[in-house]
């Protein structure tokens, strides 16, 4: 199952991946994501993309939240 990690944004809306790494993200945002239970190894789902290249909606442990596309691209996931 040697899949190379890809950016979270490459997922098809509705599909999931497990987080491989989160790098180069604004530290405040990084902490807030950690508060919501977003860490390496956790399964995350891309729910949808907002209007005008706006934020993407994500789901992690049943919690829905949105962050900007630029920041979401810092999250690398493994698709199994």
């Amino acid at each position, binding site marked *: 199952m040697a899949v190379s990690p890809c950016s979270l944004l490459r997922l098809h809306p509705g599909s999931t991946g497990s987080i491989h790494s989160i790098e180069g993200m604004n530290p405040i*945002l990084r902490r807030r994501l950690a508060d*919501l239970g977003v860490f390496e190894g956790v399964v995350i789902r891309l729910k949808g993309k907002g209007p005008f290249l706006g*934020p993407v909606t994500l789901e992690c442990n*049943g919690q*829905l*939240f949105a*962050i900007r596309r630029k*920041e979401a691209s810092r999250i690398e996931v493994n698709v199994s």
Partner: protein
Amino acid sequence: MSSIALVGNPNTGKTSLFNTLTSSYEYVGNWAGVTVEKKIGSLKNGAGMLIDLPGIYSLHPLSRDESVAARYLVEESPGALINIVDASQLERNLLLTLQLLEYGKPTLLGLNMVDVASARGIQVNPEVLQTWLGVPVLPLVARTGKGSGQVLSLLKNSAAIPAVHFRLDYGEPAEQAIAAIEKMLPAGASLPDSRWVALQLMEQNPVILQILKSQLDVTPLLAICDVCQSELQSKKLALTLPQWIRSVRMDYIRSLCQAAMDTTARKPHNLTERLDALLTHRFMGLPLFIFFMYVLFKTTFDWVGGPLSDILDGWISGPISDGAGTLLQYLGASSFAHALVVDGIIGGVGGVLVFVPQIFILFLIISFLEDSGYMARVCLLMDSTMERMGLNGKAFIPFIIGFGCNVPAIMAARSIEQPKDRMLTTLLMPLMSCSARLPVYALFAAVFFPSRQAAAVLSMYVLGIVFALILCKVFSKFLFKNESSIFIIELPPYRLPQIKTLLRSTWEKGKGFLRKAGTIILAGSVIIWLMSYAGPGGLDVAMDDSFLAKFGGLIAPLLQPLGFGNWQAGSTLVPGFLAKEVIVSTMNIIYHAPDTAGLETQIAQVFTPLSSISFMVFILLYIPCLATVGVIRKETASWKWTFFSMGYSLVLAYIVSFVVFQGGRLLGWS
């Protein structure tokens, strides 16, 4: 008297429970960050004080509302804690719970939203939680009040809540560090549980660090942390000490959840899935939001609010005014008293009270939006626009609250993470047209644009938002040097607001308006009336010779280029700074109008359609009211920024009104 603090993650229903356990009422809504201040109420059974704190994810605060909660736990010493957890988000919520248990105070665990959880196929076993954590666990549905009886009866005897003896083993290197730090903490100091303090310090909690710094030299303590961290690194356990502590907790929570939760029937929140597919649709989302806003104004002005206001106006100007007149005559009151009551008080205060139906309907719809979960989606929809302007979408929640009143809206900005974004939101808030400005638009729109009232009023609100966005760009570029902003928002599940909650929160918002009618608007009306009744030539002078006319005449020349250079308009602006509602009551007094219809006729003679637009724009923008200035000062803690917010709005109002009026004239309008 013992005080009990409510602590938990944001949007888990702490304030809902607070409202049922105490006889007070505080602001509730369906987004993270509704409560931004510490609220105190007394328990219904008299067992002590209950403290409602803003929601926190951890004891390490990021935003200002969170630091209120974190500081409370460190600096004050509550007798007991009620930790509210969301049963449908147990894993995330328990991370805070563990830290609260380590805090060592007697704790109750309120397992809230068990109804939401079971609708999503999640069953949580309270007995298992109770056994593992060693604290009483009570299932709750705080919105309906289910289970709050048990909480009250447990709190009745709060001394009987057993002390917590929860202790997690953090592994040898960390445990050694904890013990070493504990030894070095000053004995007998006013600090919470020493193991907890040690752990928080190791997690680099800035609040704890600051407190410790004020009491002792922290260098040796930090050295212990560093040693521990390098030991963890060399053993390849974790990269940093905070990460290690967190992972130990997470492991414990995972096994606890496996034991206490049955998620075999877990299913997605259907309603939320379906609504989000539509409401946050990439193309449909924004048009739908604009459509909802249009419906909001249509309902407020055309469909429901307007007709109700007309009925009320009929009563005030008819039976009430006549009745008061007859009564005064019967009592043999002087003509002075008669004029004061009928023209001053009933004319001035009544002229504003007429708009109560419209304002309450606006509040009702805003309350509905707040409680439904849609507010967070609006932030999501607006973020890309806001980002281009140098702010983030989260500022939109305060902005919408600002349509009701700017004061709570500025408080709501506390939940925004970055100081720069918070400051921008606060500074721009006065451009959000609050309900006090609404009577002015309603009045002028009824005179000059009778067939398009809702559209005319809506355009004022839109204009406010447009200028907020433009200035946001300018301020962000020149004052804050384009510091980047971040955006993250939790999207709570949608829910249908309960009628009881809706009525309650509408009343709480509208109450302030009625209170103002009885205080500042009443006082303003009496003073304005006296100034219009008296003049240099004595009492009961012709209006044009009154003090009010003299005073308004001083300002009038300045307003000439804006199209309303008469003393009547000029004299409304200064009292309007005290409270914007007074603008309309002043007009009622000046024009001696017996009812709204009479006032409309008078206004039609003094203003033209073009100058009325210019006047409405000026009122929209010209200055934050006194109460707003107060809260800006409090939240920014700076007179410089407070004066800046007053100054820029005055300049902006003058320029925009000038352009509207002169530009309109060039185009041949009148």
